[in-house]
């Protein structure tokens, strides 16, 4: 199906600027019928902007959009895109948290009306979920706000694939696997391949290069608002893809860096926590200067355990103690992290306000210094640190959240799957930063849905159904062990 002659989408000369920032400069892109196109690039390379133009959520400053060969007029928008069979799953979730799964499905499908629409919507979304994510366990009547982010992402994806009046011809998936655990991610990509084999098309962006290489027919690499490579996926491997994105370090270095941990327990215990649902007395234990990994399938109590530790900051409770201040790096940026009305600088300083006070007032100069220091250290890509936080791309917003936690006085840093939608280069930088901070005596507790990331940890706990089910030392860590523990008793298939 490589370079299929018939094009579902053909974009030419797409240009878009946000104020002084040029996000796209004359970009051409085509997606063939029956093709799965991978789109990769660093944070801020322009991927999300391009996708938004295609989905009709943003209007281009210049360029032409042709869909199935037809040039689209200036008024091209979401409705038109949807009528032409283009469906989009965004990186930032777009479900209404106060409505149920079924009700959210209705919003998407205007044709579900009349008596019993709720039932037909529930049936539609249930079928969609079953087809893509067998064994998902999500009730169509659950309120979206109560679902963990992984489940919300599944609903969002399933909703985009459901069909009522207009057929689905192109599905755009923007970082779909970043909030999903390994199993659900695989289920999705397998489903995409099936769809593509049946003549559908897919545009996929992912920072998990494995996904791109294994599941896409062709790969387009973007950098600084332009396309720098466009080749069949088979011509790339991990190294060449990373190189094309303009990053020379490969993640082989992550493994080389894995620390040889001194005898565990030589340092004092700073965190001890027994999950609320734990049947036995197994506890998460973190010593000073350790990086502790928290693994398992998404939504199995990892975030809840982090919050339990967060609430116990500086206290000794029956089931939890945390010695000293605690800071949290949110992974669910929209809901748990970003303060959307504030500048980048204020978003960084909010955790450290109390230490910036001089004679009762927050010292403006000290605040600016803190923000610029972290902008340098973590390389936040912005012309001005006083710009609104939403002027940054998703990955750069995530860097701000890292800066907020690492710039604070906290000796214990909790990370709630923080690398969602973060590109490889940034990840490597952050990994290095985490390692340096740990060596300086900070303790990290790191929940991640990417098994690879556990290689950065000194000790790993696997959670299932709200309990700690495995306790694996760095030396014994293998992917099989983690997966096995995640699935013991065949609880999920």
């Amino acid at each position, binding site marked *: 199906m490589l370079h299929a002659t018939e094009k579902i989408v053909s974009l030419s000369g797409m240009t878009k600027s946000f104020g002084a920032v040029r996000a796209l400069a004359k970009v051409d892109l085509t997606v063939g019928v029956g093709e799965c196109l991978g789109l990769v690039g660093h944070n801020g390379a322009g991927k999300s902007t391009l996708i938004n133009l295609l989905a009709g959520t943003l209007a281009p400053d210049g360029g032409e959009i042709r869909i199935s060969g037809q040039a689209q007029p200036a008024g091209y928008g979401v409705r038109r895109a949807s009528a032409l069979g283009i469906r989009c799953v965004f990186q930032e979730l777009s479900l209404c948290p106060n409505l149920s799964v079924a009700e959210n499905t209705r919003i998407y499908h205007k044709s579900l009306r009349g008596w019993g629409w709720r039932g037909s919507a529930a049936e539609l979304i249930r079928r969609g979920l079953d087809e893509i994510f067998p064994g998902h366990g999500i009730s169509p009547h659950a309120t979206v706000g109560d679902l963990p982010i992984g489940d919300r992402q599944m609903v969002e994806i399933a909703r985009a694939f459901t069909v009522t009046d207009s057929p689905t011809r192109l599905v755009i998936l923007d970082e779909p696997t970043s909030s999903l655990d390994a199993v659900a991610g695989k289920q999705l990509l397998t489903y995409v391949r099936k769809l593509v084999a049946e003549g559908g098309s897919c545009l996929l962006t992912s920072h998990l290069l494995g996904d791109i290489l294994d599941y896409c027919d062709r790969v387009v690499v973007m950098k600084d608002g332009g396309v720098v490579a466009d080749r069949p996926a088979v011509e790339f491997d991990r190294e060449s893809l990373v190189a094309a994105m303009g990053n020379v370090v490969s993640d082989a270095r992550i493994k080389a860096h894995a620390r040889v941990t001194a005898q565990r327990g030589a340092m004092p215990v700073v965190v001890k926590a027994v999950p609320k649902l734990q049947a036995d007395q197994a506890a998460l234990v973190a010593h000073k200067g350790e990086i502790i990994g928290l693994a398992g399938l998404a939504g199995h109590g990892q975030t809840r355990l982090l919050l339990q530790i*967060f609430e116990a900051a500086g206290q000794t409770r029956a089931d939890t103690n945390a010695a000293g201040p605690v*800071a*949290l790096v*949110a992974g669910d940026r929209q*809901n*748990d*992290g*970003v*303060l*959307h*009305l*504030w500048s980048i600088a*204020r978003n960084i300083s*909010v*955790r450290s*306000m*109390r230490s910036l*006070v001089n004679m*009762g*007032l*927050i010292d*403006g100069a000290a605040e600016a210094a803190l923000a610029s220091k972290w902008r340098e250290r973590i390389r936040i890509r912005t012309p001005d640190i006083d710009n609104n936080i*939403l002027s940054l791309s998703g990955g750069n917003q995530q860097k701000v959240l890292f800066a*907020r936690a690492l710039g*604070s006085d906290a000796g214990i840093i909790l990370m709630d799957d923080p690398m969602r939608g973060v590109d490889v280069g940034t990840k490597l930088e952050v990994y290095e930063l985490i390692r340096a901070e740990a060596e300086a005596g900070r303790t990290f507790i790191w929940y991640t849905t990417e098994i690879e990331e556990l290689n950065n940890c000194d000790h790993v706990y696997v959670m299932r159904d709200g309990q700690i089910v495995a306790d694996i030392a760095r030396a014994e860590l293998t992917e099989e062990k983690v997966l096995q523990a995640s699935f013991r008793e065949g609880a999920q298939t």
Partner: protein
Amino acid sequence: MRALAARIGNKPWLLSFAGALAVWLATILFTEGKGGGQIITAALAFSTFTVIVGIGQMFVITTGPGNVDLSIPSTIALAGGVAMKIMGGQDGLIWLGLLACIGAGLAVGTFNYILIRLLKIPPIIATLSSSLIVMSVAISYGRGLQIKPPPSFADFTTAQVAGVPMLSLCAILFAMIMAVILERTVYGRATLAIGQNMRAAHLAGVKVERTRCITYLMSAAFAGLCGALLAGFSGGNALNMGEEYLLATIAVVVIGGTSVAGGRANVPGIWGAALFLYLLVTMLNTYGASAGVRLVLTGLIIIAMITLAGGDKPSR
């Protein structure tokens, strides 16, 4: 035009001052320049009270959707009564009366916060029901009697310096202090953070409940202080003297450029909006509009102002 709109977008309070200036000009155009000075003096004097309670309301509304203090009018009535009774017309007891009115306000604020926090009642219901209780207390406490303020206190609240009321000067200073508190203190920043996203603020280490508690206490304390000053200004307390401040506080907060959705507040705008509201009514009176026409026009003009101010722009 676009640049102008952008300018106003950045400084929403400019609009309220521009509005105030426009209605003042329209008024003195009608009177052919007569009484322009007196109108400003009166506007400053009456706006002072709106500003004091309006700033308290602004902090409450800024803590996020659903937060509003509806107990302000009753608190004004109760605190005014308490202050006048304790002062008892004697100059020597003024300070005690002022402490007592703020104390009465703090008591109401504490009660409000207990309802909101411990009983988990939505603020709009909590403060509305507490206002009924507070009003009953005010009625039984004062028995509806009007007590005159001590002479020095009455003099202070009505004093003027070159046509500018003393109290207004104090209120301008007060507004400046509150603006600094909003932008430069941990408490002010915490209020703004909570208003944007309570959960994110909590996870960023902001003390959410402490901040909300201070905010409700502060709003009620300002209402208490306003009650005493209003009683001094108008020659004695009255049970209905807070009535107009229920809608006025919310109106000045919104017209002044504070976001009803929370997280964005504006202190100068409170002054501009308070002046605007007073001058608007003065203008309509001067033009001889009947009560009905006046109300309709006031409503329409407020709607126009809020639309112009842009309300809440989409955050993206």
